[in-house]
């Protein structure tokens, strides 16, 4: 039973560029959330997708956008990259939509470095 898978594992981009990160949820899950984890910090909620729509959004600018596909996989897009966007980006999946006691299942993340 495959868990949450993310690609790529590492990525190096230049300021101003755009990046796309990908996530496949755990089998049986159809809700995907994205988190940004800066070095030495806890994960910060970016947004959550369910039924191909953004359901909730954290305090992130519009440069951060996403998409969910009919097979429940998801993409995170970041435009006009800033140095401060360097972080570990975590994808988490859960049962639809996370009800009481439904935990998040995380992938290993994508390490994005912006130079």
């Amino acid at each position, binding site marked *: 039973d495959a868990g949450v898978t993310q690609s790529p594992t590492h990525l190096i981009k230049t300021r101003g560029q755009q990046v796309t990160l990908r996530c496949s949820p755990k089998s049986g899950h159809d809700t995907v959330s994205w988190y940004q984890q800066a070095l030495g910090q806890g994960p910060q909620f970016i947004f959550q997708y369910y039924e191909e729509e953004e359901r909730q959004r954290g305090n992130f600018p519009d440069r951060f956008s996403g998409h969910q596909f009919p097979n429940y996989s998801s993409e995170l897009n970041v435009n006009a990259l800033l140095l401060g966007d360097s972080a570990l980006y975590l994808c988490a999946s859960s049962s639809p939509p996370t009800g*009481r006691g439904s935990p998040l299942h995380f992938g290993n993340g994508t390490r994005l470095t912006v130079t």
Partner: protein
Amino acid sequence: AQSVTQLDSHVSVSEGTPVLLRCNYSSSYSPSLFWYVQHPNKGLQLLLKYTSAATLVKGINGFEAEFKKSETSFHLTKPSAHMSDAAEYFCVVSLYTGNQFYFGTGTSLTVIP
């Protein structure tokens, strides 16, 4: 409003001695609470969860946590630390609707041989 406070940024214990990682929460509603562990350059793994059933929750790898409403605490404990327990630990709170999970800033656990 809700938030999570992990009272110690770093904890160091000797192998074989007890572990205590402290977490306090604030929530306007009855929360769901979780502990996750993160090893270097890895994602987060669920250790245990509290969802208003038994207040003493047992998790994986010998960890357990006790929900104390009067103290708004959810401390993580283990009777005997193992070298493989060295990692970052996060306390997490979620509202009833569960659409957002709020993470503490993490506690780094070091286990001394």
